[in-house]
């Protein structure tokens, strides 16, 4: 029954080829460091799911932001869990993506033909930092407010462009409701759109090239 259905679907979509390409591809014998990319991907999914759930109650407006976050943590059933997963997941994501990048550097996996995988990774790292920076403001408590005051002030320090950069980040001279909404818009629309498309490209390239093997001392490889 199930078999007949999957045959029927395969004849119309060719899903089996894709499935096998993703899950049954050959991988060289590697070590646990090679799981860091998958661990990053796992956290991405966690952040997307819990983040969407948070928007069900969160309001990006100075009059309500703080109260809505307090409401989530203290009143909503399991709200503490959903917020906790997103909060700790954010830190874990920065750490895991960074460690994944280090492993790619130390094992030389960024070399030909994987440069584009690397470039997309560099942007993914910046996007990850962007998520952390914009998300930190959203609870709109003292810590959030002053951390973002400082963070955006740093953007204002370079000569010539500093002033404009600061105004673009804050949506004006000061940290106001304008800042909160634009950070929210970045955090839930712009950055996720970039992140998800780049993760798609990144993983596609990983599958296309296959995972690089671990380099061996004294071995010269011609591929």
């Amino acid at each position, binding site marked *: 029954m199930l078999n007949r259905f999957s045959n029927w679907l395969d004849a119309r979509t060719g899903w089996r080829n894709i499935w096998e390409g993703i899950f049954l591809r050959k991988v060289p014998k590697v070590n646990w460091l090679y799981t860091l990319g998958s661990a990053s991907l796992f956290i991405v999914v966690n952040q997307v799911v819990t983040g969407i*759930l948070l928007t069900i109650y969160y309001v990006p407006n100075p009059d309500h932001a703080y*109260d809505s976050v307090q*409401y989530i943590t203290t009143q*909503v*059933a*399991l709200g503490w*869990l*959903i917020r906790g*997963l997103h909060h700790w997941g954010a830190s874990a994501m920065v750490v895991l993506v960074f460690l994944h990048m280090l492993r790619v550097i130390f094992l030389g996996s960024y070399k030909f033909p994987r440069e584009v995988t690397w470039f997309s990774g560099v942007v993914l790292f910046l996007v990850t930092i962007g998520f952390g920076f914009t998300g930190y403001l959203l609870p709109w408590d003292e810590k959030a407010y002053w951390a973002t005051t400082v963070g955006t002030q740093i953007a204002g320090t370079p000569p010539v462009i500093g002033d404009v950069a600061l105004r673009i980040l804050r949506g004006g001279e000061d940290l106001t409701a304008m800042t909160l909404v634009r950070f929210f818009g970045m955090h839930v629309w712009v950055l996720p759109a970039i992140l998800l498309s780049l993760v798609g490209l990144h993983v596609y390239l990983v599958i296309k090239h296959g995972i690089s093997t671990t380099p061996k001392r004294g071995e010269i490889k011609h591929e």
Partner: protein
Amino acid sequence: MSEESNLSRRKFLAKATVGIGGAITALIGIPAIIYVVGPVLKKEGDSGWMRIGPTSKVTPGTPTLFSIKIERETGWVTNQQDIMVYVYTDDGRNYAAMSNICTHLACRVRWIEERQEFFCPCHNGVFDKHGNVLAGPPPRPLDRFELKTENDEIFIKVG
């Protein structure tokens, strides 16, 4: 490793992946559902008996509109909500309090003095002065509040 043990290892890993993946999905999926529906299941506060006004305001034979404000907590916001009540009496002794919410699909009904009936503009529902349905789609008479009078003041029970 022999071909056969290789295959069973692969099968085992495939099963383990599906199993652990399913467990993680359930572990976040079930809390997600609880999180979304949780606040819906909370009971809204009961306001009890509310004074709506003096009996002298009600002319026998004509439904009279009273409006009271109550405070309701919705999430982290406390807001004011208006409750509109038509009070009716035939004899100046027995009073009835009717909600102005149409029993069809919750539009607000209005007393039309010239026609001596309640009219709902949404789908032309018509009720008489006691709240009974005269025409249109409403399935039952206008809802009533529990009412009492004390020292010529009218009180209704707001749930």
